[in-house]
């Protein structure tokens, strides 16, 4: 499943534009298995476009995109079977329960998982068992997000794409979410999260990349000793990049 470099996600020289607006101009990005990569960038920096390229939703104008060595454009089925994607602010079907939703989406993904896999993932995201069989119409934003993440976990795939996963979560839920990602790292999952939330990224990411001018302008790696990142320096960098965009 892995290519020679051991990268689960490998993007090289990716170009993409909407009309005359060139969003990605030679993006290079790799995420290894067991690594959590936080992609930071201002509005319109191309974060969603990067995810779309990985999901095979758009064909690159130049460059290559590989997910576990698979080209998502030429073989979208195989690529998507290796990825789980959690969109921003998704609300699953309101008139189904959390359990039914996950069962239903797993069926759509043609993923054969038992009831216990669903229950394990629901308990892993910290959703109280009494909520599992309630219709999601009564769920809070945080609970919805948990179910969406539980779905991604239940898929049990090597690559996880998260779009603003912590938006709408309270600090406690963010902590729980970070623990989940820790567990994923243990299981050798490659995680690419696109986020505004610099605090969360600092807490959990192994690498943080700044997206600007259509490529990774700067990349920092967590230090093995002491504080993993210098939050203040990152914040200044982020705010500057946002202003540039």
């Amino acid at each position, binding site marked *: 499943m892995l290519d020679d470099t051991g990268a689960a996600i490998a993007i090289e020289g990716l170009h993409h534009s*909407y009309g005359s607006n060139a969003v990605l101009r030679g993006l290079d990005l790799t995420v290894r298995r067991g690594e959590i990569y936080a992609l930071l960038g201002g509005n319109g920096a191309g974060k*969603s476009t990067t995810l*779309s390229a990985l*999901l*095979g*939703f*758009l064909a690159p104008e130049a460059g290559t995109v590989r997910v576990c060595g698979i080209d998502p454009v030429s073989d*979208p*089925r*195989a690529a*998507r*079977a290796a*990825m789980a*994607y*959690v*969109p*921003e*602010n*998704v*609300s*699953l*079907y309101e*008139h*189904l329960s959390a359990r*039914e939703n996950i*069962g*239903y*989406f*797993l*069926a*759509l*993904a*043609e*993923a*054969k998982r038992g009831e216990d896999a669903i229950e394990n993932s629901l308990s892993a995201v910290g959703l109280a068992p009494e909520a599992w069989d309630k219709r999601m119409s009564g769920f809070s934003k945080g609970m919805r997000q948990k179910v*969406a993440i539980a779905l991604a976990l239940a898929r049990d795939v090597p690559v996880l*794409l998260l779009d603003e996963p912590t938006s709408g979560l309270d600090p406690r839920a963010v902590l729980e979410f970070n623990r989940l990602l820790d567990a994923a790292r243990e299981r050798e999952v490659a995680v690419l999260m696109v986020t505004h939330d610099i605090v969360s990224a600092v807490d959990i990411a192994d690498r943080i990349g700044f997206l600007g001018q259509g490529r990774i302008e700067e990349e920092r790696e967590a230090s093995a000793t002491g504080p993993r990142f210098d939050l203040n320096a990152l914040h200044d960098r982020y705010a500057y990049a946002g202003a540039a965009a």
Partner: protein
Amino acid sequence: MSASSIWSAELRLLLRSGRNLLALILLFVLSSAAVLAGIAEIENQRETIARVEAEQVRDLAAVADANAGPEGDPGYAAYYAFMLTQDPPPPLAFAAIGQRDLQPYVLRVRALGLQAQLYDSETYNPELALPGVFDWAFVLIYLLPLVVIALGHDLVTGERETGRLRLLLSLPGSGLWRRRIGLRYGAVLAALGLPLIVGGIVMAAPATGIAVMLLTAALYCAFWFGLAMLIGASLRTSATAAAAMMGCWIVLTLILPTLANAAIARSVPVAKGIDLTLAQREIVHRGWDVPKEQTFERFFVNHSEWRGKEEFEGRFHWKWYYAMHQVGDEAVAADVAEYRASLSKREDLTRKLGLILPGVGTMTVLHRIADTDILGQLAYQDSIAAYHAGLRQFYYPYLFNDRMFTRGDFAQIPRYETRSGTGSLEIASLIALIILTMLVLVAGALSLSRQASQSRAKSQK
């Protein structure tokens, strides 16, 4: 999960939505109510025919009592003996009543001029007829599209508005839209079709006829789902998609048919009906003022077998009277043909319109197979005309040979035999409906898949 469980999961998803469930139940209830109303109307018409038949037997017996006898005059018998014709509802009429609420299905004729009798109306309440009948065909043509709109307008837009579209598209499985549309299509068709099938069994309707009706419904329904795909995939929000589909419905089922009807009524006048009645009256009454030989000469043109038997003494003889009426009918034959041609022309233009308007095409197919359109009525009139000709042939030997008309002869008067159904399969309309439906379906499927790939690219903009 197995292949069947994904279907059952989809079904659960469909039926858990209050709106979808309500729409399907409503369609089922309306379809059942329409079938029941249709059956009630048919039973009503059958009862009426039975009632009239009983009255007719009594009336004819009274006429026989008054006029039969050793000295019975065939002229009086023919004058007073009204004979009943009846057009019992065809077996499929319960689903598509068509014009049977307006057109007479019982008519009495006697051996006098046919053209003065053939166009008589039966009693019907015009205000009740005004809004049109409530039958299965109405539920199909008018109401089914609204249910399709309720179920289908937000297939794509609804997913996008809740942020699920990208998630759904990111999954490795396939056939999502095919499954969802197929399921909705099946559910709608079942809710609409089951009452028809039950009604068909209850009314002992021919299975092929019911099958044609179901096929037509399936095509019409597919047309609307195709439109839902086409519109739902091209517009951004559910609200605009719903508004656009309602717009299509209004234009296709309310505005264009009414406009077309106005145009047809304008371009094909049917005044010949009045003309021929007026002309027939003139000829019959002028007969009293012209020499009798003249009337007989015109009569002999088509009935030469009675030549030489026209002489009689005195001022009046029934044979001359009936010859005069026969001549009156024959003189307006061209007008009659023209009148009928104008009616057929209107029907034909409607059929042509049905080649491009699916609602009108569906209407044409349903009522033609049910034999409840104007052509059915014309066929009934034809059968009355044929019977009337036989009635005249029956009386002429008595009149021209001066035979007495006895009680036994009353029993010999030919009785009208119910015409056999003339319902037929309107192949051209059906094929046009198939082509229209396929076009919309293909366009819908194409725009759905194109749209899906586009929304992948820029869903969150």
